[in-house]
């Protein structure tokens, strides 16, 4: 019983730590994005609140809390309230299967640095990703606003289309590792090389699909102001809007972590075998780098037109990803990697 209690306590603590990191990480991702974008566009960016503008996210948060919550009179109230929650929750729980490091010894117990290690970890990622569409669908419908509806439908169609390419791009790492478990995929990369070396095409497809999955530029149909005002968030204000915003940025961090785990060795790095605590640091650095790449892409590429976006997803990405599955399988059988 004591052992069970310790086990439950361990889970709760790990979950709480993960959520705390994600929530503060979200705030500073927005800061990072604004500063980095400003640097690219030869501006200064937010630098007034606190040293180097470091308190800017706090100021934004306080402002959003005190804003008036407006609710459209004709909105479907329950779904309207449910939508931000349905966006936020999958964004947080998707990180549960990502390992942050190897085992460490703490308080006389051997603790694995991961919330959980499912033997179907990759499928868990895909199923949570497919669930996260509902927040957008509901927000678009329940606002009872044509722009919100159109924005919701557009981004939902985009997400379910790119999900297919995403799922297919996960297949080469699974084949190479011979397992659906995230920790075994990382072990496979530790014993050979990072899978971006073996499956560069899958890595590119995966990154593009992940960008589309989180509605980032150049796939940010949601923010096509000229066409859709603000898409499915048009009618949201105050904290409800903040929840959507939060969901989006946490998802950015989550997909960076997923990409790092599948293709960049996860927490792998020099010296991680001897010092297990280096694992989370390496993972953090990889996530940070990928977030920087996403912001860079946003600053560089213009938004795709909607029909081209769908054509690109269905006619380019999915065939490439499918072909790549065959190539990887043939290579594994032929060369015995």
């Amino acid at each position, binding site marked *: 019983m004591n052992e069970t209690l310790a086990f439950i306590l361990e889970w709760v603590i790990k979950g709480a730590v993960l959520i705390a990191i994600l929530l503060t990480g979200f705030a500073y991702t927005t800061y990072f994005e604004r500063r980095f974008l400003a640097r690219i566009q030869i501006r200064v960016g937010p630098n007034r609140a606190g040293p180097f503008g470091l308190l800017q996210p706090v100021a934004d948060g306080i402002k959003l809390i005190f804003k008036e919550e407006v609710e459209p009179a004709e909105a479907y109230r329950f779904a309207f309230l449910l939508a931000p929650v349905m966006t936020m929750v999958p964004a947080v729980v998707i990180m549960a299967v990502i390992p942050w490091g190897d085992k460490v010894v703490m308080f006389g117990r051997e603790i694995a640095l991961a919330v959980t290690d499912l033997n179907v970890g990759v499928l868990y990622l895909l*199923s949570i990703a497919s669930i996260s569409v509902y927040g957008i*669908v509901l927000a678009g419908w329940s606002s009872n606003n044509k722009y919100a509806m159109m924005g919701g439908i557009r981004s939902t169609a985009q997400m379910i289309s790119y999900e297919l390419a995403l799922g297919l791009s996960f297949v080469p790492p699974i084949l190479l590792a011979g397992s659906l478990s995230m920790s075994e995929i990382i072990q496979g990369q530790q014993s050979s090389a990072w899978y971006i070396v073996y499956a560069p095409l899958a890595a590119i497809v995966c990154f593009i699909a992940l960008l589309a999955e989180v509605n980032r530029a150049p796939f940010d149909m949601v923010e096509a102001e000229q066409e859709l005002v603000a898409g499915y968030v048009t009618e949201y204000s105050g904290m409800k809007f903040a929840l959507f915003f939060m969901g989006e940025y946490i998802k950015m961090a989550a997909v960076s972590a997923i990409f790092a785990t599948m293709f960049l060795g996860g927490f792998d790095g020099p010296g991680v075998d001897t010092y297990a605590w280096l694992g989370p640091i390496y993972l953090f650095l990889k996530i940070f780098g990928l977030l920087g790449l996403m912001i860079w892409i946003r600053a560089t590429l213009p938004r795709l037109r909607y029909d081209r976006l769908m054509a690109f997803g269905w006619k380019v990405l999915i065939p490439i990803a499918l072909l790549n599955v065959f190539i990887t399988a043939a290579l594994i059988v032929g060369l015995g990697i």
Partner: protein
Amino acid sequence: METEVIVFLILAFVAIGSAIGMIINKNAVYSALFLILNFATVAIFYLMLGAPFIAMAQVTVYAGAIMVLFLFVIMLLGAEQLKKADKGEWQKPVAILFVVVLIVEAVYLIFGGGGDLLPMINEVSEVGDPISLATKLFKEYFLPFQVTAVLLLAAMVGAIVITKQDKKS
């Protein structure tokens, strides 16, 4: 009581509640949401039976893909609100008949042939893990698996061909 029984009872309550909610709700979108909740609880049942692969497939395919399309159709057709008088009076006796048959069957399985259920559960947990599932599908049932795949592909192409309008006319 054991933890498993408590978890089962809570889940069963949610599953039945969401099923009833789906039927009696007047708004089609909320009905669809109840159905999603129902699928999610079924997925957790699979997890409890030690079949994580089937649970995840359930969430991805049913809750994630099929229900999104349901919601799309409901929203795009604007069919959220049910019209008042429905002419389906004949449905009632048929529905009652089916429900009675289902209950009789369930009662028989639980109290009469309950002994047969346990090996089934073992079978599920054996098949549930991805490696054994794949081994069964690709070795033992290879031909049926491939035939199913071709049939599904044909059905998919068929659906697209039927909906595609002839450009000449």
